[in-house]
């Protein structure tokens, strides 16, 4: 199978070549693509720089609608042309060599990134158009050009107006063992980047014109999380405010209600005290009365509260789902939210009782003080 007459221009094709150094390379790891047939690279292929590649399953070389299969050999003509002239779009052919590659796998972009027009904006082309090969293979191609065409880069620039070949690292992915390591790694990486920029500037390799070339972008999964899960964070904040707000409201409202009820019963309290009832027994009676009623209410609220949360959660979490799925992160968040169920577990029961009973005990403090200050003589004289 030969590439022959490609319907895309050569520049686009060459820029699609992407070197990788791991079997589970960055686009697989980030689930931008998946291998739909064949396999990924072996350690040996990566180390030795074997002529193997993984390309898109829908790749249509030369527009002949001939499906590419795993195990096919692709023959690529590596050609170097002289710079274009005013009359010719392409200059004289300086060098050509045919290199064969074995297709070891076919990839497909996952639905979430398939329609991502933004991804196609860079010169590296859309993810779905990328042709992956081991880094070593790409480097050996680079070396081959350098050997066959041994002209210094600056001379190439003079001849062609640009260097003939430019190999570069597009992105590096660092996978840390724990999330806690992020806070240690991030400042160190930033410092290393700053040092690199500083030394490049010292060596006059960077000036104002090409300063943009060292604007490294460092993205941690934590930053990624902050930007994608903003709505979840907001819901969490509102739920927290509502939780603590309800505790404060419950304490103050119950305090007032119990106080009012006790004031209505001041005559009964005064009589009981006049008959010789001890204060601690009266306190115990009120505490028991309030506790029995409120614990019953708390127990019922375990079920109704859960039902209420279930009803609310459906609409609340729908707002947290991304309006349109434009990335794998959006897809991931949607899947997580959709699969999350509201749990009625021991922790929930324990927390509701713990917080509820503490609140009731707090609410009963003032009524207790009121009860302790009761003077039976005054009460009986009043009534």
């Amino acid at each position, binding site marked *: 199978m030969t590439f022959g007459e490609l319907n895309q221009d*050569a520049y686009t094709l060459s820029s699609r070549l992407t070197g990788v150094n791991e079997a589970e390379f960055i686009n697989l790891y980030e689930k931008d693509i998946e291998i739909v047939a064949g396999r990924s690279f072996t350690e040996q292929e990566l180390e030795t720089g074997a002529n193997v590649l993984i390309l898109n399953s829908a790749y249509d070389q030369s527009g002949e609608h001939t499906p590419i299969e795993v195990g096919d050999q692709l023959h690529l003509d590596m050609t170097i042309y002289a710079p274009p002239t005013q009359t010719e779009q392409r200059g004289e052919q300086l060098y050509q060599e045919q290199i064969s590659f074995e297709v070891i796998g076919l990839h497909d972009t996952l639905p979430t990134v398939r329609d991502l027009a933004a991804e196609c904006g860079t010169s590296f082309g859309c993810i779905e158009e990328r042709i992956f090969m081991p880094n070593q293979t790409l480097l050996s191609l680079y070396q081959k050009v350098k050997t066959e065409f041994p002209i210094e880069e600056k001379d190439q620039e003079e001849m062609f107006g640009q260097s003939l070949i*430019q190999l570069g690292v597009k*992105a590096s992915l660092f996978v840390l063992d724990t999330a806690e390591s992020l806070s240690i790694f991030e400042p160190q990486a930033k410092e290393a980047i700053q040092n690199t920029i500083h030394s490049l500037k010292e060596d006059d390799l960077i000036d104002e014109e090409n300063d943009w070339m060292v604007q490294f972008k460092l993205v941690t999964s934590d930053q990624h999380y902050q930007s994608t899960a903003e709505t979840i964070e907001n819901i969490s904040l509102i739920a927290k405010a509502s939780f603590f707000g309800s505790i404060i409201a419950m304490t103050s409202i119950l305090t007032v209600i119990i106080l009012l009820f006790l004031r209505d019963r001041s005559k009964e309290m005064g009589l009981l005290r006049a008959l010789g009832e001890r204060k601690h027994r009266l306190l115990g009676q009120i505490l028991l009365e309030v506790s029995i009623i409120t614990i019953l209410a708390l127990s019922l609220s375990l079920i109704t509260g859960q039902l209420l949360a279930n009803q609310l959660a459906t609409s609340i979490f729908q707002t947290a789902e991304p309006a349109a799925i434009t990335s794998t992160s959006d897809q991931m968040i949607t899947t997580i939210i959709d699969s999350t169920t509201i749990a009625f577990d021991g922790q929930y029961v324990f927390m509701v009782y713990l917080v509820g009973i503490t609140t009731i005990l707090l609410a009963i403090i003032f009524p207790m003080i009121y009860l302790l200050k009761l003077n039976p003589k005054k009460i009986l004289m009043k009534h």
Partner: protein
Amino acid sequence: MSLLKRVWLSIIYRPIQSLLLFLFTLLLANVMAGSYTILQTTTTIKQEIKDQFGARVTVQYPAFQSSNNVSLFFF
């Protein structure tokens, strides 16, 4: 009269007061339980999202993202 019996009689002889206390507690406890459930669920979702993102750092190199200087031609 035992304390427990007195407590019980006090509750049932003032049904309106007891019912009011019960309803207010139920209402506020519902808000509390509901918001706690939502808080617990968001915590689970947040943790799951964080776990899925993992502990990763990506360094992107702008020079090669917007470069249009690639001149190795393959046909």
